[in-house]
């Protein structure tokens, strides 16, 4: 009654259909499923790893739940000068630059990032980001959406640590402003 010879190869970790030698194109039949092992963990040209499943509708997460934006995550690493560890944040959880500034200040326990975004010279901190072209840019210049789409990672420089950059010292804001 039992199918004969459930041999050891049945338990072999493969990414094809059971009984198949090749994972694709059986009898010329089109398969929705493609060989996901073929996509090695490559670094895509936007600096983020590309290891997304190519199978349509798998895992079975309702498409309307996907529409809610819950799965639109843009993870980027954040480093702060003088801090030995990196943090990772999801840019999609923020509505705009002010939200991002508050979150960064909370993450690293510092103040002044909000000011830096409004006026690049007024703060001890210089928040910058690396974009798709691998250029380092000041955060806050471009519209928020454009920023989230091109940002690969963030860095918060401290003015005091950039003495070789030839930057002016922080501009002191008069008290009555």
């Amino acid at each position, binding site marked *: 009654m039992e199918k004969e010879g459930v041999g050891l190869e049945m338990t072999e970790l493969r990414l094809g259909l059971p*009984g198949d030698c090749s994972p694709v194109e059986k009898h010329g039949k089109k398969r929705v499923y493609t060989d996901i092992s073929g996509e090695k963990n490559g670094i895509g040209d936007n600096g983020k790893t590309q290891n997304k499943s190519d199978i349509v509708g798998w895992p079975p997460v309702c498409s*309307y739940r996907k529409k809610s934006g819950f799965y639109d995550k843009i993870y980027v690493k954040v480093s702060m000068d003088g801090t030995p560890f990196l943090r990772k944040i999801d840019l999609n959880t923020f509505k705009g630059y002010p939200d991002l500034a508050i979150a960064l200040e909370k993450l690293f326990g510092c103040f002044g990032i909000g000011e830096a975004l409004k006026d690049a010279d007024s703060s001890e901190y210089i928040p910058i980001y690396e974009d798709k072209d691998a250029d380092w840019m000041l955060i806050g210049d471009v519209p928020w959406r454009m920023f989230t789409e091109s940002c690969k990672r963030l860095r918060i420089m401290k003015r005091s640590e950039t003495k070789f950059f030839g930057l002016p010292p922080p501009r002191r804001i008069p008290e009555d402003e």
Partner: protein
Amino acid sequence: MHSKRKKELAEKLEEKRVCAFPDEALELVLVNIKCHKDRNSVSLVCKDWYNAEKWTRTHVFIGNCYSVSPQILVRRFPNIRSVVLKGKPRFSDFNLVPPNWGADIHAWLVVFASAYPFLEELRLKRMTVTDESLEFLAMSFPNFKALSLLSCDGFSTDGLAAIATHCKNLTELDIHENGIDDLGGGWLNCFPKNFRSLEVLNFANLNSDVTFDSLERLVRRCRSLRILKVNKNVTLEQLQLLLISAPQLTELGTGSFLQSSTQWQSTDLESAFKRCKHLRSLSGLWEVTSIYLPVLYPCCATLTFLNLSYASLESGELAKLLPNCSQLRRLWIVDTVQDKGLQAVGLNCHLLEELRVFPSDPFDQDILQGVTELGFVAVSHGCPRLRYVLYFCRQMTNEAVSTIVNNCPDFTHFRLCIMNPYQPDYLTNEPMDEAFGSVVKTCTKLQRLAVSGLLTDLTFEYIGKYAKNLETLSVAFAGSSDWGMQCVLGGCPKLRKLEIRDCPFGNAALLSGLEKYESMRSLWMSACNVTMNGCRLLARQMPRLNVEVIREEDERYDSEVNKVYVYRSVSGSRSDAPPFVITL
């Protein structure tokens, strides 16, 4: 009394048919029978009971909109006030059904408008609903009270505006997750100024802003409002104002829990929550952080349902929250809580009956975090009453599942999704056959099962042999040969829905179910080994089944069948099938 019914009873008197029990009395009794399965039994007793039941049925549930036509429905049940209709195959939720497949509500509404002018409730799942249909609905039924839409598509917020404008007796507007075109929040302003009958308002899954003033005034004047679920654009300060106006709420869906201004105090929100002494269900909580979770603690003691499926909590946050939630029966969370978080569930929620763990990063194979078998086992130790589980994970073992079902033998719904296809038991490297074997052997009440992982035909032998109460089975990337599917179709006496994708089941398997399909609602098979010949044979042998092949543009070979949908119907083949649906 309906004029046709009067005529029927008069005719009966004329024919002098002996009546042991007056029909009117029978009707008065039958009005109290609500369950449609019971009513179906009643209608089979004798002609008089059939008629009495027919006239007193006010609610009808149609699990497949193509199994019957609106004309047949209104002839069979002339007095309906409340309809539940389900349309597309469930795999349409995962984009496996092309757009414009069908299940359009409009033809039904047109018939209802003349046959059921007093229609009050319409609940739709996976139907196509246009704005024109919503407007037609709003204008055609003056008594209309309740609209619920889940996984539907084809409409926009303009349709909601029509409902708000014209449905003067509306008590329920329940918009779940749908493919809705969100054109803006202006629809909410369409409720008339003197409109106050709303009891249920759910717009949690709409993305655009509503005018808060309108919302607040609406909430304040609808004194019977018991369910309110707002969308993520409603801020914490605004939520506080709403809670002050509606402390009688039993179900609340919050907006975003992100702080928007530094001036505002969370203590006010906490006291607003404290005033809500009747809350049984809490959801929303987008972007909730540990700073604000404590404001919820006071109302958690009475909660029976906590939906954190849009809040990516960490294990520590959940561990602090749950000791306040000892009455929980249902919990939906995201796998960011990890196994440690699930341990907290097992420690605190001993009355838990339902657990759903959603994946935070299902499409990124890089991510190794999430929950494992350990978390599931921990829950099973602490929650022996568990009967419904949906669990997304990346690793599982046969032994763990066996332990779980031994701790919780009362499972009625067991949906396990090991996210990488063909994944074996990660400790022993064996197939997961024994896991599902232990599920079906131990959980004798099992009604719904979704399997995953590396599975041979043995899994299906077990299912066919032991799953005597199984009604719904979902299979993906599993099985070794036709034999697997044959076992299921040869066993499982109560099987109603079978959905299969990417399995090596072919024509022999398909045809082995000939006698079974008429007792089932439907069968879906995609990316299997079925051919046109097999489907044609099935269609020829079983004329009361609709055998529909979905042929997509890029399929080159006429003999191949990528997607086939088989279902029983009393109304023959579809008249609205699009060109890519071939009815055999």
